[in-house]
């Protein structure tokens, strides 16, 4: 033990990135001149030196077996001198210096089930969370919804046929691991029932004051139930955020019947043209329908197709909607507007229309 402890390394931090960079990048670091996107999934970056770096971008399901990582490593050896990188949206990128090898690499990736695309005015990989694979508060599965949606939107991954890029993200609860709230389309799983409290376990597994203060709406208060020290939830005040569940395992939110999926549209993070925006509610609730969530897939496909048919070149989803106005969006997308679409939290008033600038009625 002491030998082990004395050799034990801590706080070494991540390895320095430089040791993993291909020679062409080391040579041209900070000296790139321009890039082009000659076809879907392929980028060429040209350096001031004249050197050319070809990037081949392939989709991965984010969840990866080590066997797949080994496959990518083998492909990197065969085609790229052993170098590759991943993107922030869970794609893998092979970095080539020999243009003539691109086709062979794309073929091998396709044969192994990893399509190449996701550049330019396309739909790239869906950033997503853990879902039923691994998380306690998931109101839906993440990987399954993403797989079903991308099977349908696949033509927009391998082609650059949209007015602008469409960034889709998925989160399985309001914690929103990932940039879901600023996506062209955000798929957000929601709980709709107040927590079920295990009064017996409460005092043993949770700190009651912490649990009470975890609630953003003040819906939880201490209570003695059947002689147990516990809490009670004022149900009208609960908006099903699962915050209490994250600090206290005795307050489960998961519900087979009432959990499901909401869809939000029109957010962006890039500063190009318009400022970054939050996504706004389009569809408040679609029930969970595993294994392939056909209603969710259909709803998203509809929004993408309506956008593709109506937006101008370079217009992101939110920019298009801002131009035509939300009333027209609900009309052309054929989505019902309900009381749930009207904000009622802290800054709700700022979202009420205080002008007569809306598209004509009828």
């Amino acid at each position: 033990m002491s030998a082990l402890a004395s050799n034990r390394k801590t706080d070494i931090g991540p390895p320095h990135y430089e040791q993993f960079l291909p020679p062409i990048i080391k040579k041209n670091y900070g000296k790139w001149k321009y890039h082009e996107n000659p076809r879907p999934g392929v980028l060429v970056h040209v350096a001031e030196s004249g050197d050319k770096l070809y990037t081949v971008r392939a989709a991965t399901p984010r969840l990866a077996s080590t066997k797949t990582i080994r496959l990518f490593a083998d492909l990197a050896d065969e085609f790229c001198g052993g170098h590759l990188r991943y993107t922030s949206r869970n794609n893998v990128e092979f970095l080539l210096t020999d243009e003539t090898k691109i086709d062979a690499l794309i073929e091998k990736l396709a044969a192994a089930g990893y399509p190449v695309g996701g550049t330019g005015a396309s739909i790239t990989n869906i950033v997503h969370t853990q879902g039923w694979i691994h998380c306690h508060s998931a109101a839906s599965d993440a990987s399954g919804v993403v797989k079903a949606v991308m099977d349908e939107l696949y033509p927009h991954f391998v082609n650059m046929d949209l007015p602008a890029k469409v960034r889709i993200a998925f989160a399985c609860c309001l914690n929103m691991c990932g940039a879901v709230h600023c996506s062209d389309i955000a798929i957000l799983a929601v709980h709709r029932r107040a927590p079920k409290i295990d009064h017996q376990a409460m005092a043993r597994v949770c700190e009651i004051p912490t649990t009470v203060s975890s609630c953003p709406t003040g819906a939880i208060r201490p209570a003695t139930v059947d002689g147990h020290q516990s809490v009670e939830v004022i149900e009208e005040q609960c908006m099903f955020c699962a915050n209490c569940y994250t600090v206290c395992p005795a307050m489960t939110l998961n519900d087979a019947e009432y959990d499901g999926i909401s869809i939000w549209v029109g957010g962006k993070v890039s500063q190009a043209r318009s400022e970054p925006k939050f996504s706004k509610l389009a569809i408040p609730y679609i029930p969970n329908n595993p294994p392939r969530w056909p209603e969710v897939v259909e709803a998203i496909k509809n929004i993408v197709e309506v956008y593709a048919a109506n937006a101008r070149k370079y217009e992101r989803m939110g920019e298009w909607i801002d131009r035509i106005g939300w009333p027209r969006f609900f009309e052309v997308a054929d989505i019902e507007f309900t009381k749930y679409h009207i904000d009622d939290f802290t800054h709700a008033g700022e979202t009420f229309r205080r002008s007569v600038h809306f598209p004509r009625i009828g």
Partner: protein
Amino acid sequence: MTTNKRETPLIDQLEKGPWPSFVKELKKSADNPMTNDLLGVLERSYNDRIGHWKHGGLVGVMGYGGGVIGRYCDLPEEFPNVAHFHTMRINHPAGWFYTSDVLRKICDIWEKHGSGITNMHGSTGDIIFLGCVTDELEPTFSDLTEAGFDLGGSGSDMRTPSCCCGMARCEWACYDTMGFTYDITQHWQDELHRPAFPYKYKFKASGCPNDCVASIARADMSIIGTWRDDIQQDDAAVAEYVTSGAVDIVEDVVGRCPTQCMSWDGEKLTINNRDCVRCMHCINVMPKALAPGKDRGATILLGAKAPIIGGALLSSVLIPFYEMEPPYEDLKELVEEIWDFWGEHGKNRERVGEFIQRIGLGNFLEQIGLEPTPEMVVHPRTNPYIFFELDEDEDEEEED
């Protein structure tokens, strides 16, 4: 040990279709009993329409408070091999570049100690090892450090900083995002590994306003590359875009400039750079002809977060222009001022953005020693409820 292969008719339906299948990934590693049981639990969730995981219980490696997230199955009798199924976050190399050799090393470690299932990568940017039993945490950690890797952040600490590939492959990078990210990650190892903040604190570094790592939405501190001189313009290359028909310069470029600061007289593109807000649109459309200026740095913004607890926020401007010269001393000092002040006065699980909303940006700036500037707001206040501090005003008058 022999394990019966789990029957999974529901999730098998997610093997079909053109998109890469996570179920196929799980099956590739199903010779591992943990992954075999994971397939079983997942099938059960698809059947029950509910997750079967519990969190809680402090687990980790010796001396660290973060980097491991405890996870347990709520059906341990049925799925004993995933009764403990913790997540390990491993701090990725900046920019997510790898060699095949180092990837194989990572795979060797994870096949030896865990499920063989990973996320490449998790939301914070870390390499994720999904499914480690408590007893294997320390041996996994030891093999990882031997291979040159360390854990990332979790809980109320500095989370693993991440960045775009910046100067490694992008002509628009206005500073060295990877160099910066590596530097601060090493500088604040203690803050990364030992949670001592009111809540999490994320850094994300994007080389230009395209913000490829979504820093403005996802990071408490967003570092977005920018410039303060004129856009570099190559008129011959502009003309080529126009004559080749690749770009409709009036419609696609001039017409989409948010500040209407560009004009085209049929031959020459003129940019009134004083009015440009450096949104990147024209540069994105004509990368061969236009480029960010030469006097480069970054805008530092603060406070983004997802909805939990007080509602979602985007980061807002804190330093309009910072030169981003290593070793970034002023910035590091400012960050520590922020941590001290928020650490002392922030409530438990209050992100720094929410803290600022509560105490007011004006007060916050005063406390961390920054002067207010008009870049920090969309417009000045409209409400007249001003909390004048008369004593200070009088002092100033006396000094005059």
